[in-house]
């Protein structure tokens, strides 16, 4: 089985799991909960809640009011994964990332070669830092209020709460815009606005495994660049340290991104270090 199939299975499984949890939470509120599903609130399993909680604890503001201690477990699990493999949470688990990617597949069919080229590279190179502006704003707001204000504009929260009346109009509007934009731009929220993705991207700079390119065997065909949904110039790098890389592996030989075996791969050491280690 190819990893892209495994990745898709993982994405569908986590999306379905979160959707069932959210629906069950609403059913429980009216006394019709599904007995076989654990009764959890989204606030109990939000990994970004783990970051906000940790930041709040470090700054002496205590646990954030809407959140539950389990977010620290999920947050730590994602942190551990990111330290080893990079932001695989984004490529394998996050339902908001998955739904943008799935809508993007439809967009690819409609717009063919024009898909994901709407935003000029120069503008993209500036806009990608917006995630860090959002991250700082969210942390400052969380610190000031000790509540997760971000939920008021969070499209992830809106995705699984739009029917409950708990999601704000602002969050639902951002979700709708994100989903429509996903038809033209691959993962627009992930690329330009997601504070959690931005944070994981920063952590991934020190991840053990990275996407690497072997200059000795690379034939400079540029296919890896064209395959990369996050618009990274893989063919110009020895190792990908861009914070946007979510380890989707679409640039690698195994996933049909690179035509040369072991020219673009996911590994610990670069080609020269590997030769020396032999």
């Amino acid at each position, binding site marked *: 089985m190819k990893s892209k199939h*495994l990745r898709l299975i993982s994405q569908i499984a986590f999306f379905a799991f979160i959707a069932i949890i959210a629906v069950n939470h609403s059913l429980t509120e009216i*006394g019709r909960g599904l007995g076989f599903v654990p009764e959890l609130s989204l606030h109990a399993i939000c990994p970004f809640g783990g970051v906000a909680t940790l930041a709040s604890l470090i*700054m*002496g503001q*205590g646990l954030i*009011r809407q959140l539950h201690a389990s977010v620290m477990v999920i947050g*730590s699990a994602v942190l551990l994964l990111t330290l080893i493999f990079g932001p695989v949470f984004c490529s394998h688990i996050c339902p908001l990332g998955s739904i943008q990617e799935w809508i993007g597949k439809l967009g690819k069919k409609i717009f063919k070669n024009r898909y994901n080229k709407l935003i000029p590279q120069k503008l993209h190179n500036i806009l990608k830092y917006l995630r860090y502006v959002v991250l700082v704003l969210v942390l400052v707001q969380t610190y000031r209020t000790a509540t997760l204000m971000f939920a008021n504009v969070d499209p992830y929260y809106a995705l699984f709460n739009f029917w409950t009346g708990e999601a704000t109009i602002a969050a639902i509007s951002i979700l709708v815009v994100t989903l429509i934009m996903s038809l033209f731009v691959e993962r627009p929220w992930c690329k330009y606005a997601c504070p959690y993705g931005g944070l994981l991207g920063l952590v991934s700079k020190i991840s053990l495994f990275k996407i690497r390119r072997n200059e000795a065997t690379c034939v400079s065909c540029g296919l890896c660049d064209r395959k990369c949904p996050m618009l990274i110039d893989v063919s110009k790098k020895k190792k990908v340290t861009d914070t946007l890389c979510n380890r989707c592996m679409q640039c690698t030989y195994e996933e049909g991104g690179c035509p040369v075996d072991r020219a673009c791969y*996911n590994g610990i050491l670069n080609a020269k270090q590997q030769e020396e280690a032999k």
Partner: protein
Amino acid sequence: MRKFKLSPVYISLLTVVIFAAAIFAGMQTGWWITEGRGTPLAGSKGGGHGGESEEVTEEHIVNEIDEITEEEHETEGIAGSSTVQNALDMGITMEELEQVLEGAIEDTSVKIQDLVSERGLKFGVVKDALNALIDD
């Protein structure tokens, strides 16, 4: 060279396995608390700047989480998992409970939500009524 390279298939499998294992470890160590709101730590002002807050130690956090587990039903109000006993502990009387739940209650360990389902009531309405009694 192969041993320094990780196939994408393994990355996908390991991602799911490590994620599940970390959550399992959290459950085993008592950190997997999915009920009850977080409440501000002692010393935090929960609504202003934290300049004068107490130093937060690991022990402090663990103690707070233990307290939250013990007091969650007291601090949070009626939730899907609350039992009749939890409601009594929150200060609602048995008469009030029987009135809101439209009938006699024999067992205090039963979940309010189960009584609501049995009696064909709406949990949201019952929850609001009971929470209003707690607030009074």
